[in-house]
């Protein structure tokens, strides 16, 4: 972060002035219900996470500014945008992973079912059990496949039947058939795609409500990528999924809602447009979005 902070400083940008310029404050974007999206049968989508005027800072550098966004339950929301526009930073605000960075600061509100994620009594450790995360590069622990899946449950004091939980999590992650005979083998002995599904199983095992995915396929080959996308399609019946992706085809294929972010002159990321994926890719409202999704920029 420090180089970008330095650049912002040397460019003489006053955050206070730049704030209003590139992204005029937007009202939370309302999205029409998509057919078949709401399994509950209700016409209104249940909003799981609501971001209200969220800005993120690393020290004095503003990475993300003024985001208003609603994320619906049991849908796949994709965050797309050019490198450095703050997609990952925004994603990591949702499970408070950014709190691990000492100079990180958040302004605005993030509500999970109406309760503030950053409230004074909220412990980030508890948040992370409810909001799971899958990373860019598969990062299984150097433990057995079984212990990888059981890790999250163990640290959170799970008292149920661990064997069942492990099997169920691996089944949901579409990995059980491939590993059921070698649960004692190292998680690192699996292929890249299998490792990533193991990480998904590991995240599922803490029984989260939301799963965040930070470019989960960027280290995988096309076949493994497709497997993960199919898996996401099945998982959205039970989980709310937010995925950051560099791959526009992936966003178009796999997500219900797409949010397009870009960055302003001060390198702070802001939300340009959000809408149903099919609409955003075919008839975007903003010129910036159209330039990006048609490959003319970014």
């Amino acid at each position, binding site marked *: 972060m420090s180089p970008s902070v330095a650049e912002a400083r040397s460019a003489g940008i006053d955050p206070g002035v730049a704030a209003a310029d590139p992204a005029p404050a937007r009202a939370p974007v309302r999205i029409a219900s998509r057919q078949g999206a709401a399994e509950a049968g209700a016409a209104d989508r249940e909003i799981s996470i609501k971001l209200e005027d969220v800005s993120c800072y690393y020290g004095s550098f503003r990475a993300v500014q003024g985001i208003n966004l609603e994320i619906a339950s049991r849908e796949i929301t994709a965050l797309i945008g050019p490198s450095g526009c703050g997609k990952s930073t925004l994603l990591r605000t949702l499970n408070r992973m950014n709190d691990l960075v000492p100079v990180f600061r958040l302004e605005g509100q993030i509500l999970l079912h109406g309760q503030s994620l950053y409230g004074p009594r909220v412990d980030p450790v508890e948040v992370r059990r409810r909001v799971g995360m899958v990373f860019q590069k598969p990062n299984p622990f150097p433990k057995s496949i079984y212990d990888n899946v059981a890790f999250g449950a163990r640290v*959170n004091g799970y008292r149920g039947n661990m064997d069942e939980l492990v099997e169920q999590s691996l089944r949901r992650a579409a990995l059980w058939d491939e590993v059921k005979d070698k649960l004692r083998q190292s998680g690192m002995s699996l292929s890249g795609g299998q490792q990533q599904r193991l990480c998904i199983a590991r995240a599922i095992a803490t029984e989260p409500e939301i799963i965040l995915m930070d470019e989960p396929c960027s280290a995988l080959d096309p076949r493994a990528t497709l497997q993960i996308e199919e898996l996401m399609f099945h998982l959205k019946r039970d989980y709310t999924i937010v995925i950051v992706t560099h791959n526009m085809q992936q966003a178009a294929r796999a997500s219900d809602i797409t949010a397009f972010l870009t960055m302003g002159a001060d390198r702070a990321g802001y939300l340009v447009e959000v809408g149903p994926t099919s609409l955003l890719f075919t008839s975007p409202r903003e010129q910036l979005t159209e330039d990006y999704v048609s490959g003319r920029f970014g």
Partner: protein
Amino acid sequence: MSASSAARTPASEALFDPRLARRKLSGTVFLSACLLAIAVLLLALLLLLIDVLTKGVPFLDLDFLGGVPSRIPARAGILPALVGSLEISVIVGVTAFPIGVAAAIYLVEYAPDTFITRLLRTNIANLAGVPSIIYGIFGLAVFVRALHLGYSLMAGALTLVLLILPVVIIASMEALRAVPDSQREGAYALGATRWQVIRGAVLPSAAPGIMTGIILAMSRAIGETAPLILVGAVTFVTFLPTPLENGYTVLPIQVYQWATRPQADFQAIAAATIIVVLVLMLLLNLLALVVRARLSRHVSW
């Protein structure tokens, strides 16, 4: 691509001077230099080993291992020194392990990256380079005198603990720092607390490196002589040492004492003692290898 092929003209080609043979020759020269360095090292080691083995082996038998020192070389044994060395290495290992690892965990996982922390790290690296005799002086003042441990094996062991702690801490810090941050993030993202992240994700990955560092540091402690002279290791002990009573000796001091005598036979039993020290170190290094292999069977990055 087409642009570059269009631009490839005889004139531009003339700007390159491949001289492939010469480039390859410089590689061969460098490789030869490396081989020569290895050869010097191996030769020195080999000469040393041959000398020690030819002198020492005739004296190596059970009587020698199980006997006590004597004024008559043929009757002398090294049991008190052997037991002293083993006791010391156990005490050193058991004490240096928790202190060293805990200090390393604090410095890598907890300490904020401030000026003071960096100063601390630099100083630990410097401590590893302090001459061991200085540790002996410190041990004499603190353990022997201030803590009233006297010239006991315990005072010697604790002095050696201080001596190897910097090495243990540095090795453990390296092992901890080698664990990728993605491992820590993965554990945090599952709702682990900081301690659970360290215990469950970081330490298992760092364990092979940490254990190797400890064992190698222990083998250094076994070979130390100078600081022990100051904290009371004596040269003629005919009984088995206990940790808190005065009077003990260790193998390198036994070597020192015999090797400085003019008689050829004493030199020979010194050589035999060196063989025992070498075997002990070899065993410890072997143990380090085995431990490393066992602990790292899951780790691969």
